């Protein structure tokens, strides 16, 4: 199946070439990798280009509020057991960035594509995927992204009649509601710590009952489907009941959940769980996330957390006190300009850690931490914060642009 079965039309080839030229100009101008501008130019010249560059590929789409970049990477590693993979590994996850990434994959067999939640339905229509992995949905950048339940509704409408196999998290009621409009779903019990966007039944609006790990609506009967795959501690349980050990270098429960979903996706493409999970163990960092960087005699672990659900999962993976924690929050366009979400994060869980606070919105964090009743220091910048911590490991948690700023300072 590798290689183009049908060569690109002259128009498409022209579009790809023009896109590459624009990307090269963008790189030369120091404005990033250029993949997005390249894709935009190419898509304008040929609106069907995304469909065309994907037509020879076995495509899997990955979408979620959190974990999509990491899961895309894990699936890509797993599928490489069977053949070549093209992927938007840098997280350019809207149609232009996806087009640009796939245009470089003429010789590959698989396309493993991270898709922004808002664009899933359209991309799924264009690229005729074989599989779609849906991890979770929760509140994120509400000043620009709109309502979480509306996103679930758009997924549900977009996935109706979808021929791809949907591999979906049985533990997220919004994901289950979105996926259950499609005929072919593989349910994975991947867990989810954050529950505060699904206390109201997505189907009828009744109050959800959530005893232990189960959930159901007592009013309309909408309930957790029986999963065929599950994350169980450090193991993935497959549909035959076999338990396969997870040995990731990436930290945390959420990444084990991502591995479980990735194993289910890999199986849909004929890669055995044992092979898939072994390959996932080679991933050390994803676009800088989870990287440990040496700076000023300290080991700084870089952790990205963009929204309340992400911060919650991150708190559960950091070293115990007295490990120092560096927090950085910005509110630029790509972060969402409202910082109210900080109050949906339970910062009292950081009690006992020395805490240093930086970022454009460090004063919002300061008030948040003062009300949480934990001790903290407001620092001038990343360098100042790091030097106030004792030598050793520092857990640095930052939201999107704050994370990029931090990477630049510590040389990642």
């Amino acid at each position: 199946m590798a290689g183009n079965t049908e060569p690109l039309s002259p128009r498409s080839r022209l579009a790809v070439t023009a896109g590459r030229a624009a990307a090269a100009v963008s790189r030369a101008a120091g404005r990033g990798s250029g993949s997005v501008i390249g894709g935009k130019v190419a898509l304008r010249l040929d609106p069907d280009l995304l469909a065309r560059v994907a037509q020879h590929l076995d495509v899997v789409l990955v979408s979620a509020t959190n974990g999509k970049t990491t899961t895309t990477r894990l699936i890509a590693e797993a599928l490489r057991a069977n053949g070549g993979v093209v992927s938007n590994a840098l997280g350019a996850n809207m149609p232009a960035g996806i087009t640009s990434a796939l245009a470089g994959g003429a010789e590959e067999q698989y396309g493993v594509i991270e898709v922004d939640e808002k664009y899933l339905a359209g991309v799924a229509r264009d690229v005729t995927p074989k599989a779609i992995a849906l991890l979770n949905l929760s509140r994120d950048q509400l000043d620009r992204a709109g309502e979480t339940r509306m996103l679930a509704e758009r997924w549900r409408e977009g996935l109706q009649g979808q021929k791809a196999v949907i591999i979906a998290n049985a533990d997220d009621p919004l994901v289950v509601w979105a996926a259950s409009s499609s005929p072919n779903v593989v349910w994975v019990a991947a867990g989810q710590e954050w529950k505060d966007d699904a206390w109201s039944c997505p189907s009828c609006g009744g109050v959800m009952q959530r005893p232990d790990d189960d959930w159901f609506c007592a009013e309309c009967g909408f309930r957790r489907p029986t999963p065929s795959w599950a994350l169980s501690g450090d193991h993935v349980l497959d549909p035959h009941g076999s338990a396969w050990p997870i040995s990731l270098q990436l930290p945390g429960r959420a990444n084990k959940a991502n591995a479980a979903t990735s194993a289910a996706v890999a199986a849909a493409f004929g890669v055995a769980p044992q092979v898939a999970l072994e390959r996932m163990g080679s991933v050390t960092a994803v676009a800088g996330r989870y990287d440990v960087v040496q700076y000023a005699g300290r080991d700084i672990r870089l952790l990205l957390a963009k929204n309340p659900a992400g911060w919650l999962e991150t708190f559960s993976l950091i070293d115990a006190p007295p490990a120092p924690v560096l927090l950085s929050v910005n509110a630029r366009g790509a972060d969402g300009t409202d910082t109210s979400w900080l109050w949906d994060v339970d910062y009292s869980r950081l009690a006992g850690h020395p805490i240093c606070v930086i970022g454009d919105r460090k004063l919002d964090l300061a008030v948040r931490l003062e009300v949480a009743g934990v001790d903290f220091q407001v620092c001038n910048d990343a360098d100042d914060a790091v030097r106030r911590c004792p030598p050793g490991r520092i857990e640095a948690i930052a939201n999107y642009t704050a994370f990029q700023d931090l990477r630049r300072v510590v040389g990642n």
Partner: protein
Amino acid sequence: MSDTSLRLVWVYPDLLSTYGDQGNALVVERRAQQRGLAVQREDIRSDQPIPTSGDIYLIGGGEDRPQRLAAERLVRDGGLNRAVDNGAIIFSVCAGYQILGREFVNDLGETSQGLGLLDVTSTRGEADRCVGDVLGDIDERLNLPQLTGFENHQGITHLGPTARPLARVRLGRGNGTGDGTEGAWNDTVFGTYMHGPVLARNPQIADLLVKLALDVNALPPTDDRWYEALREERITAATQPA
């Protein structure tokens, strides 16, 4: 006042806690505790009865469908109205503010009945969503410093004769009526479109609620330097072009 207690009720977190407004409950709780008050906080889900003997009730913003469901359940429950009759203080934000009014336009485009605790009615604007930092002057009768907050809504709220505007905006849209008003209040019931959360940005409003609930004129001072630093930064940011 160390033997005084304060019963704080956070209304319907399952439906109306989407925009960080639970911070309002955290701020009131913290500031009351710093004054030596024993705070009893109760989070009441929409399948539970609203207690009627609380001192302060806080209600937050939510998405459009949860707002309709919350209004239906609160009207059916009736507890908030009884609490106000018992002298409780209510502070509400965005979707919660609209619910406290006489009626609002819901996610289906129909009119939902509100609780009638504020003399306001809300409709849905045709213009773009109001999103961004807000700066305003609070009703001088409340004797409070400038209002700072973040708005993110499409509602338009008209005030009737017995509701007073909580503030006049200098920047931002507030009630969306074009007359510069933001929020509404009567003696014991307050409503605003401000997130931020608004009581973290304006701790003196939190203190006002506590003073009204306890019927005292003053509270012991607290160390407010981080609140003050944040206020100064946000007010400066709002008045300076980006």
